């Protein structure tokens, strides 16, 4: 089961879960995904140890999509 996860004050929240073949679940996840991007989150997919990629559309075949807040110099 793939998950859309947002890092927040609770540790993290699972916003959507889907199986790649389940079109309805994928559509719901894509809607939740777009909503979070509109709220200022960035979406990242881990592509193996040491690598991650920012995504702007929900990758339905990814196992885990993580939403993060922007970083800035401290």
């Amino acid at each position: 089961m793939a998950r859309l996860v947002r890092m927040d004050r609770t540790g993290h929240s699972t916003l959507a879960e889907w199986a790649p073949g389940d079109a309805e679940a994928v559509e719901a996840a894509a809607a939740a995904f777009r909503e979070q991007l509109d709220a200022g989150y960035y979406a990242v997919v881990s592509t193996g140890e040491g690598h991650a990629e920012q995504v702007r559309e929900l990758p339905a075949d990814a196992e885990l999509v993580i939403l993060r807040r922007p970083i800035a110099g401290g």
Partner: protein
Amino acid sequence: MSVLPETAAVRWRPRLDDGRLRRRERGWTLSTAVHTVPWLLAAATLIALEPLSFPVAAVLVVHAYAIPSLYANRGALVVRPRDRSGTGPEAMALGLLGDLVGHEARDLHARTGLVLERGALGVWLVGEAGALLVRPGGRRADCWCVKVDADLPSADRTAHLLLALREDEAGFATVANLAFSGAVRRVGRRLPARMRPAVDAARAAALARMSNAAA
């Protein structure tokens, strides 16, 4: 490779690469010398002119030592642990961070609070409010201050920085502020004792990488 979107907020900064980083490091070394050498020369001159001025010369030497120490301390501050939120959210966040890293890095994080990540610029130690980059060879460290503007558990802050670093290492270093650049040992000895094994591990990884590149 994706470009870190946060770099758009610092358009005036040239994108960092190894050459630019080396130049900045040389600038830090020069700055340290400028802050130190005149005080030492003044102390030596005072002693040469009048040995009885020893107390004043001693103050100048202490001054020469103190200024670089303050900079090194600022560098160490970027990876020092911050206040923790509740244990429940922290445990949840640790679970996610654990999913992102391998067994070795997970174990090191549990012991030291820092995540070791190998990159093109060197070996990174990622904390919750910054990262320490140990350069190839393991002698120099660059301390980067970088934050997430959100109320998050410590492990989530670390995960934010880790993911951004993995997305675009050069972009990450472009966005972050360089708080200190200098000898690894100067930063290491200003860290809490429990964090020092992470510095040792990063130095070993940076040395091994240099040896592998030379072989």
